[in-house]
Structures are given as structure tokens and as C-alpha cells.
């Protein structure tokens, strides 16, 4: 080859695969943060329990037998540092305490029983939201500055702004009460989940549509899109092969905060539609001052959230070759 003589200088760059090492380092640092964050939350919860009236540590409305059992179990007669250690140990074992309202049922039991409905609701909303949101965002970006774009953005702003309990109210009143198309409460089959799912997914749709549109516009303005066009690719192939992947990678990062919003959403939406999920239980526990259930659920939510953020982070690192291969964040 004629040209190879030219290149002797640039041979010095031997980037190659330090990648695996970098990815491992990345995972470890994320795991580290996850652990510290969880410790902070658990510690925070522990000290809050100390100050709350009606918690096992402040025993104004407990029966004597309950008290005895608790004292024994949590070593409440021991000094504070020891209590703390016992508490953390229990959490590590997966023991989140017992409920007072339900006569000593373990909190983990209650969570296990209630989580199903919430999970179905959350998964359905996320799925519906992602599909519609991505679709709206992509269409809006491709048809930038046309009426389709404007309509998609109006939907998005309204979806972001109008609180989900207002949406739920509108749906419940018009679709449920006035038109009587769908049941407005309880959880006895798929049709019961439609209205709560829609109410929950509005925010997801709006957020994803907005981000996807912005990312797509950004990507479509990049030089490599012009390069692809100059190669002779049609606009459909450009969108499918060059734009979608690059635009979707940053979208993954908002999935973490998104699940928090979904969690928040389940609290109100489950209450409004009387869905027997964890959120509804949580609100009920707040109303009835069932502190050990509140604390247990709180910890459970935290673990869930931290875990999801971790998965999202790892997924992001794995999908983007710039991070996967060199450990760089963008």
C-alpha cells in the first residue's frame, strides 16, 4: 500500500482495551455511592423513629405485651449505639419491623402483599408512557416547526404541568361518572387499571416526549448526520440508524428520576382509585400513624429507588461506547 508510508508517526496511539477495567471501576464507584446513600437514609430513619410519638421507641399507645415483645426484639433497654447496631442489623437481614395497626404483622409481609398491584400499575404506566412519549418526541423532532410539532409540545407542556391528581379527577368524573365507560375504583380486573394507568402515564409521556424531541433535534443537527446524508442515506435510514440510538442514550438517564415520580404518583393515584397497592397502604398508614409501616415502606422505597438508579447508570455506561471503553462520563 502506498499510503502506509505516510503514517508512521501516528502509530503511537495504542488506545485499545483498558475498557473492561474501566467498566469495573465505574460499577464499583456506583455501588459505593449506593451504599453510602442507603446508610444515610437508614440512619436518618433511625433517629427520626427516636423522636416520633407512637413509634416503638416512644411507647404511649402500645399494650404491655406489645411493648415487652418489642423491647426484647429491638433491645430497647440497651444504650443508643447498641440499639443502632441492632437496627441496622435487622435491616440487613431484611427485617423491617412489625405493624401496630395490623396487630404485629411484619412490615415485609404487608409490603409483599401490596406490591403486586403497584408494580402492575407502575409497569403499565411506564410502558404506555415510553411508547407514546418516544413516538411523540420523535415525530415532533422530525416534523420540527410544523403543526405536528406544536401539538406534541402543547400536549407535553400540559402533561408536565397539570398535576396527576387533577387528571385523575377529570378522568374519574367524565369517563367514569358521566360517561360510565370504565370503573372508577377498586382493582378487579384489567379494565379497573385503565384509568389509573392513564393518569399516571401522562407525566411519563410528557417528560419522555420533551426530552426525546430535544435530544433528537440536537442529534439531527450534528455533523455526522450530514455525513450520513452525504453518503446517500435516505431520511428514514438516517433516523433509524444514526439518530435514534444517539438520541435515546441520554433518555436512559431520566428513567431514574422518572421512577421516583411514578412512585409519588402511585401514592395519590392509588388513593383516588382505591387501588389496593403499596401507595394506598402508605397513605393509610400516614392517616393512622402506623409508624413502623411508614418507616419500613420508606426504606423499601429508598432501596427500590437507589437500585433503579444504579441499574440505569450501569445500563447507560454499557450502552454508550464512550463510557464503556474509556470510563469517561460525557
Amino acid at each position, binding site marked *: *500500500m*502506498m*499510503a*502506509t508510508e*505516510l*503514517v*508512521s*508517526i*501516528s*502509530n*503511537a*496511539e495504542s*488506545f*485499545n482495551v483498558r475498557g473492561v477495567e474501566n467498566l469495573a471501576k465505574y460499577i464499583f464507584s456506583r455501588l459505593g455511592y449506593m451504599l453510602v446513600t442507603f446508610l444515610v437514609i437508614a440512619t436518618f430513619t433511625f433517629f427520626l423513629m427516636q423522636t416520633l410519638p407512637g413509634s416503638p421507641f416512644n411507647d404511649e399507645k402500645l399494650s404491655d405485651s406489645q411493648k415487652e415483645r418489642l423491647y426484647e426484639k429491638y433491645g430497647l433497654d440497651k444504650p443508643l449505639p447498641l440499639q443502632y447496631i441492632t437496627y441496622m442489623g435487622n435491616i440487613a437481614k431484611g427485617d423491617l419491623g412489625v405493624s401496630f395497626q395490623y396487630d404485629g404483622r411484619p412490615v415485609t409481609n404487608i409490603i409483599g402483599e401490596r406490591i403486586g398491584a403497584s408494580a402492575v400499575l407502575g409497569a403499565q404506566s411506564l410502558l404506555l408512557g415510553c411508547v407514546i412519549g418516544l413516538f411523540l418526541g420523535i415525530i415532533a423532532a422530525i416534523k420540527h416547526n410544523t403543526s405536528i410539532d406544536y401539538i406534541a409540545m402543547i400536549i407535553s407542556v400540559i402533561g408536565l404541568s397539570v398535576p396527576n391528581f387533577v387528571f385523575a379527577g377529570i378522568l374519574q368524573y367524565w369517563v367514569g361518572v358521566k360517561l360510565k365507560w370504565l370503573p372508577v375504583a377498586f382493582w378487579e380486573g384489567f379494565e379497573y387499571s385503565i384509568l389509573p394507568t392513564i393518569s399516571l402515564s401522562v407525566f411519563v409521556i410528557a417528560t419522555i416526549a420533551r426530552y426525546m424531541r430535544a435530544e433528537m433535534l440536537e442529534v439531527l443537527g*450534528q*455533523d*455526522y448526520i*450530514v*455525513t*450520513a*446524508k*452525504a*453518503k*446517500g*442515506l*435516505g*431520511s428514514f435510514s438516517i433516523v433509524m*440508524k*444514526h439518530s435514534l*440510538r*444517539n438520541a435515546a*442514550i441520554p433518555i436512559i438517564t431520566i428513567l431514574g428520576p422518572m421512577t421516583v415520580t411514578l412512585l409519588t404518583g402511585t401514592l395519590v393515584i392509588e388513593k383516588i382509585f382505591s387501588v389496593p397497592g403499596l401507595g394506598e397502604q402508605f397513605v393509610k398508614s400516614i392517616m393512622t400513624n402506623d409508624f413502623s409501616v411508614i418507616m419500613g415502606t420508606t426504606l423499601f422505597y429508598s432501596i427500590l429507588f437507589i437500585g433503579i438508579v444504579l441499574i440505569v447508570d450501569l445500563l447507560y455506561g454499557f450502552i*454508550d*461506547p*464512550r463510557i464503556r*471503553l*474509556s*470510563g469517561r462520563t460525557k
Partner: protein
Amino acid sequence: MEKILDVRNLNVSFDTYAGTVQAVRGVSFYLNKGETLAIVGESGSGKSVTAKSLMKLIPNPPGRISDGEILFEGKNLTTFSEKQMQNIRGSAISMIFQDPMTSLNPTMTVGKQIMESILIHQALPKKIAREKAIDLLKMVGILNAEKRFSDYPHQFSGGMRQRVNIAMAVACNPKILIADEPTTALDVTIQAQILELLKILQKKMGTSIIFITHDLGVVANIADRVAVMYAGKIVEIGTVDEIFYNPKHPYTWGLLGAMPNTNYYGEELVTIPGTPPDLLSPPEGDAFAARNKYAMKIDFQIEPPMYKVSETHYAATWLLHEKAPKDILPDFQKKIKRSLGNEKSIRNISNSNGKKEKLLEIKNLKRYFPGSKKQVIKAVDGLSFEIYRGETFGLVGESGCGKSTTGRIISRLYTATEGEVLYNNENIFKKKSDSEIKKLHQKIQMIFQDPYSALNPRLTVVDIIAEGMDIHGLYSDKKERMNRVYELLETVGLNREHGNRYPHEFSGGQRQRIGIARALAVNPEFIIADEPISALDVSIQAQVVNLMKKLQKETGLTYLFIAHDLSMVKYISDRIGVMYRGKIVELAESDELYNNPLHPYTKSLLSAIPVPDPLMERKRKRIVYDEGNAWRDKEEEPVLREIKEGHWVACTNQEYQKYQKESDVI
């Protein structure tokens, strides 16, 4: 010659909120088979838009081809549908772009991106396409092609990425290759490699190339014919020799005069005053008239037609009309005659009147930055040199060599990891009282690279210029402050009305001059100019360089001129230090360095700068500096040694003997 492309009266306009911008206004040219046509012009001249229109890559809206024909092998591309264009793009006509860092898809392997080109246009099985892609990678000079096939773009350096882009563009043996400033973002030595690669490929494949650039040196290196664009029009077109040695349009005169020729020392560079017109409302008559010092009344009234100078040479200027005065000889012509084909020249040394007073002394300076994974980046690594009062010291080197870091250490923006910086024999990093530090800051000033980030967008020009005076309390009342600012504005060629305006209202060159005024406001002795002109167009560069020279003559300033553009550095500097990997490898008076370079890196650097002189470019041989080889058999660390008076080279003892012999011969 067979015409492969014939562009007739091409018009491209963009619809913006402010109105319609006529970016290209009636451009006509043709392209012969196998030749290279360069289109030169400053930013905003419409050269890139012209290039993109040929492949109908102008985003629509807002852009559209409003008139004209693009005849490719006799077929008019303007009437082609998008579908038809897709068949042309990448197969018959292909394109490479300016910035190799952004023109590849970051999440697709380079191999796949090249294969894509092949698969769209040729019905080949994937396996064969893959083999072909690997062959292409080899052809553009990427070693280990089989392995690198599945690497991602971020694993390649800028020059390598541009090679990948080229591989992608030539994948289907295009008849025309459009290169839109393909080397602007690269260092000179890499630029030289890419230019050479393009020439080799052209010879092999018989491709015609349209090469868009603003750099006349590159044009002289690569072009067979040249079209000069200004304000959306071609003002002059001809063979490369005709344009360089017998230009007819005053704008071409200006461009050639504004480029310092490494073999020429004039008192001043030719400048083109002012800035290009706003194409929202192009001026009546000749768009260049307002900046043309030879302008006649007719230039402001009627657009000049294209006059024929020879079969291949046309120019659009009224100066070629029979009634125009014939006695105009542009000043730059003297320069061309003197330098024509001359490889060496002697400078009339004017400002070395014997006594030299050390103003700045740098001793074994080091600056390390923490890198990733416990590595240190040795930005500056054992640097030593001196600067004498009243001189201009040029510091050159490619990106990442540590030249800017050096400037920032001297101005105390960064601290040194090790070593000393003595200013007037005092170490600037020794513990000092606040007032001593303040004094030092007053004496050492800095001019920055990016005219857009160098001025705070929230302050008026008056407040920007007066900032130093405010800090040092250099005035007794408001009136004195204003007067001084007005004085400075006039010094840098602006007027007092500009004082109340905000930075975004100025052009790049004007902003750079405001930055100079800010530095001058505190009456400094020593100015560090960190790439002050690299972001500016050629004609604007000359304005800034001339201003700096004028100021030096009037006030005896000392400059440290940091740049990567060696021709400008040579023009402005008395002495030059060449930096490589944080060290000085060679230091000498400008002429000595250019006429008698000793260090292989300097030699390769010098051989890589394209000179705006086609005859010379044809004669030149490029020298490649292979760092690995150069260091392999060295037993001792090279140190700076004086080969002859004032000429220092980093070398081992053995090399020292060799260099001395070499320099004796000359």
C-alpha cells in the same frame, strides 16, 4: 479536458427571521476530470454553502437553491428528486467535512460506517463489503486495519478520524470528491499528511476534487485551478499560477498581501480594511467596493461583469474595463516578484542594536496536571528560555505542546510545579505583598485567543477597557477615565461611539482589538499574546498583526507571541522557540531558524507549513519526524546546547558535534 461538472448561475438563499440572506449569488464554474479546483474565501463568503449545494445538502427550510443549474455529466442536479440525489450522494459525488471530531457517528464502529457507504450503493454481500472496508482503511493509512475496523471513533485521533472520513467518501470510487475545509481543524503536520493522502488517492482513482479552504498556502499546495469567492460571488477564477502570480481582482490582491510569505519581510502586511458586507441586503454595485482602496465611482453603482483575462482566467472587476486607469500596481506585487521561487532570503535586521536587556527568564519550568488513573500530564516539562526587552519572542508548537500553559504560568494564571520565572530578575512566584503582585499584573498583560469569550458580554466596551484602570486606580476622575478609554479606542482603530456598545455587536477582529485596548490600558511593558489571531480571517489577522507591530514600534513593548501558525510567527518575531512535548527543542533568530533548522522536529514542522507560493510548493519535500526513531538510540537525555551564537538545539553530545558540522557547512 473533459468537463465533469458545470455550475451555472447558482443562487442559494436562506430565509431567516430578519429576512432572506443571499448566501450564494450567481456562481458559475466548471470542473474538469481529474483536476483539483480550490474555492477560497473568508468566513461568510458562501464557499461552504456552494459546496453543500452541489450535493443538495443545504437544509431546507431555511435554505433553498433559488436559481441556476448544476450540470453533472450533462444532467441538471437541481431538477433531481431527493430519491435521485440519494443515488448520486456517496457514489458519484461524495464529501468530507471540516471537523473530524464530530463528523463520525460516536456510537457506531468506524468499520460499520464505512461498510454503510458500500452497502447503500453496491449490491454486495456483507462479507465482501467488510473486506472492502478493511482495504479502504488500509488504503488511507490506518495500521492494523482488521482490528481497528471494530473500534469506535473516540478511539482515534483527529487526523486518523479524518482518514476514516476519507475512506468513507472514496468507498464507491466517486467521480467528484468535495472536501470542505478538511484540514482546518488539524495540526500542520497532520494537515500535510492528509493533503498528501488526497493527492495520492486522486492520482490512483482519477477523482476530481473540489477543495474548500480559507488558507492560501493549502491552495498553493493542492490546487490546479482556484476560484476566489467574496460575498457570495466568484470574483476571480483561474489556474493556480494565474491567481498567485497574475491576480486581477483587488480582493485577491488583498488576500495575497495579507498572508505573510515566509520569504518576505515587508514593513507592514497589506490589510483589507473593514468587514465583509451583510448579505441580508447586499450593497449595490461591487460588494467589495467599500473595502477596496482602488474603488472607482462605478464600483458603487454597477456590478462588474466577468472579464476574460485568458482562456482560463476571469475576474469580475471594473479595473479590467478599457476606460479604467491602467497605472495601478498593487503594493503586494513587489513582494511576489521578490519571493518568486526563492527559497531563502535574508532579513534586514533592524532592531538588534547590540545591547540586550533580559526582561524575562524562565528556568527549568515544569507544570504537571493530574490526569486520569494516577497519571500526570506533563504539560510543561523543563522549559528554559529568555526574552529580551523590546523584542518579540515567538513560541510555536502544535496543539498540546504546552505553549499556552507556559503563557498562563508567566501571567500567574497557573502556578508552576517546579522551576522559576524571573521577571526583571525577580521570581514572580516568590512570596509577595498584595501591592507587589498588583504591580506585576500591571506590567505583564495578556491578549487571548477567542474573541468571543475574551470579553464579558454584560459589560460595555468602556467598562471592559477600563477594568484594569479601575483595579489599579489609574485615573483621578470619571472624565479622565473616559478620555483615556477614547484614546485607546482610537489607538486600536475604533472610535468613541463604540464605547457604549456591548461585545456581541462587534465582529471578531474588532473584539480582538478591544482586547488589545484592555491590555494597553494599564501601560504594560510585556504582553503575552496567546494565539491572538488564530480565530480570525486572513484579512482581519493582518489588521491585528499590523496593530501589534505599530504599538511595539511606538511604545517599545515586549511580546511573547504564542501561535501554531509559523508563517505569522516568523513575520512578527525576532526570535523563535519551537516547543515539543513541554520542552524547547530549538531556539534561534527567526531567519536562522527558517534558513537553517537543525532539529528534526523543526525541520518536519517547517516542511509541513504550506506556503502561498505554488512554485515553491511543487519543489518542496516533506520531512517526517518519527519520534520513536529519534529517541530510540539515545543514551543520554538531550539538553539545549548552543550550536552557534543564538542558535540552540536540544541534543545529545553526539548530535551536538553533528549539528555543528552541519551548520558550519552552511
